[in-house]
């Protein structure tokens, strides 16, 4: 069995298992805690907890206008990075093929040149985010090993993906192996660190939205 065979076979299966199992464990461990009572009468005109929760899931994608002047750099870099990742994963032809292979879904891909440009922007925004984390006093104070490890485990797939698309420094086979393995490493770490915010952000926003909506308060 070659390393590529391993990456495509048992490696991928193991990564899936850890990612799905770990995620289920962590989320169940949170949601199964005893719910606090909310016996106070909701505000008159209360539109509903579900509606409030759902609204907050979406409104928190864009910060309130009043905060923009102080967080423009943070929003600009993180938006570039997140949107870039979405374009790469959902718009790149090889990724669409993989998704089709596993989930039988498909859609038209974006031109390769565009995906390469977006990949470059994504990589650049990640490097800028790393520098910011190291040099900004607030971020430096808050940062833990998880922050740097999670950054690295997302950076490697993006980097190897760019190298793979140009088949630059090594053979296609070698670069593909490295790319798949780096994705699998990310999958394995996902449930245990900050990367799980891909799911937790939605739960957390919804929980706050539900709580504040019943008060008629700002969400």
């Amino acid at each position, binding site marked *: 069995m070659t390393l590529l065979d391993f990456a495509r076979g048992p490696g991928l299966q193991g990564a899936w298992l850890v990612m799905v199992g770990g995620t289920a464990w962590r989320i169940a461990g949170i949601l199964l805690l005893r719910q606090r009572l909310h016996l106070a009468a909701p505000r008159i005109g209360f539109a509903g907890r579900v509606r409030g929760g759902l609204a907050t899931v979406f409104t928190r994608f864009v910060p309130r206008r009043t905060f923009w002047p102080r967080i423009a750099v943070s929003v600009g870099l993180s938006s570039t990075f997140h949107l870039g990742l979405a374009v790469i994963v959902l718009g790149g032809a090889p990724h669409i093929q993989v998704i089709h292979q596993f989930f039988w879904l498909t859609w038209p891909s974006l031109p390769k040149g565009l995906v390469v440009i977006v990949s470059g922007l994504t990589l650049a925004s990640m490097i800028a985010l790393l520098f910011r984390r190291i040099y*900004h006093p607030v971020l430096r*104070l808050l940062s833990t090993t998880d922050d740097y490890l999670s950054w690295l485990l997302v950076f490697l797939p993006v980097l190897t993906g760019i190298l793979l698309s140009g088949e630059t420094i090594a053979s296609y086979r070698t670069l593909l192996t490295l790319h798949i393995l780096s994705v699998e490493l990310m999958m394995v770490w996902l449930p245990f660190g900050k990367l799980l915010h891909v799911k937790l952000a939605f739960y957390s926003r919804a929980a706050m*939205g539900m709580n504040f909506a019943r008060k*008629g308060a700002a969400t």
Partner: protein
Amino acid sequence: MNTAEKAMRGFVSDFGPTAALSMESCVHCGRCAEACQFYVQTGDPRYTPIHKIAPFRQAYEREVGPFALIYRLFGLARKVTVDELTSWQDLIYDSCNMCGRCSLICPMGIDIADLVEKARHGMYTAGLAPADYLGLLAEKEHATGSPFRLSVTKFREMLHAIGDQYGVAMHVDEATADIVPTVSSIDLKTYPGSMAAIAKILNHVGESWTFRTDGFDADNVSLTAGDRDGQRATTLGVVQAATTCGAKTLLMPECGHAFTEMRWEAANAFGRKLPFRVMQITEFLAEGLADGRIRVKTVKQRATYHDACQVSRRGGATAAPRTILEALGVDLHELEDAGDANWCCGGGGGVALINRAAPLRQKAFEIKQRQVEATGMDTVYTSCSGCRQTLDHGGKAAQWNKTVGSLLELVADSLRP
């Protein structure tokens, strides 16, 4: 159990899924710092809101989190020392108004103010609340129901004296009443005119009402200090008094945390829905003005308005004061960020009651000072005695020539016969 362990246990004592999600979801983006008056004014990264609860993370990870078993088995969570917690006192207390502005900016929807409240519970349990003099007041409140140890007799005398001084009929300890107003200890100490104003307005409305000396002080200093037992005792004292006289409405004074506690938490302490409505005074006034029970003369005045965080952003009553000001015909010039995104005055969350926090509080006040000056108004109204006092003190220290007024007193002074 040592002091640090007590603090940790206190922190996690009522963790549900919402608080756990808050602990789990932070991505360390640092945006909360940019919403916090203490960071913005000092540039000190220690004041980053989510950092303020950092020592308590180990308690969550060891006791509550999904991987708690692994943390305990392998001793992975870092031990926190008493010295570290003591050094953290100024972050949990002095530099957090629990105003929730950070919760509004957080892209993950983390209610950091709620986590700080839990951290304060831990600190209080371990005897680490600042003694001078928030902790001292909480102890008195827990023991007597009043942070200033005001006896029932003394309170009754005070109310009648205020009635005589302001020429308004006081209703005290009547057996039954539809409306029971409560007071804030700040009003008792500093702004007695606000109690006269409540009496005047309730007499004007014409419904039966009474102050109850067996449950009058809704301030709940215990909440801000972190004393859960005191918080519950104080709350239930007021609930019991209102229930005894068959109140249909329990009226919260111009006080932010009093409203938060009674409106949103009291039923949980009571164990079932409260048998009466709980209204912050601005909600009551806005409703009365809308349905015609309260009739006012037009006030020819230009002014600005400072939102109390617990009433507006975290209480959902942002519209009420504006309805009142409109009914009074006040030419309102809003502050920048007015309403839900307002900046705290700097005194909220009990910070006004921590003596050593005065210089830091003043720095937070400077934001409000700049904002009020930008409107060009000479008068700023508010509907929280804590805010009013902080603005008064801040203004005095800054030799400010602005007048800080109570919205309640403005309405009382503008009643039409």
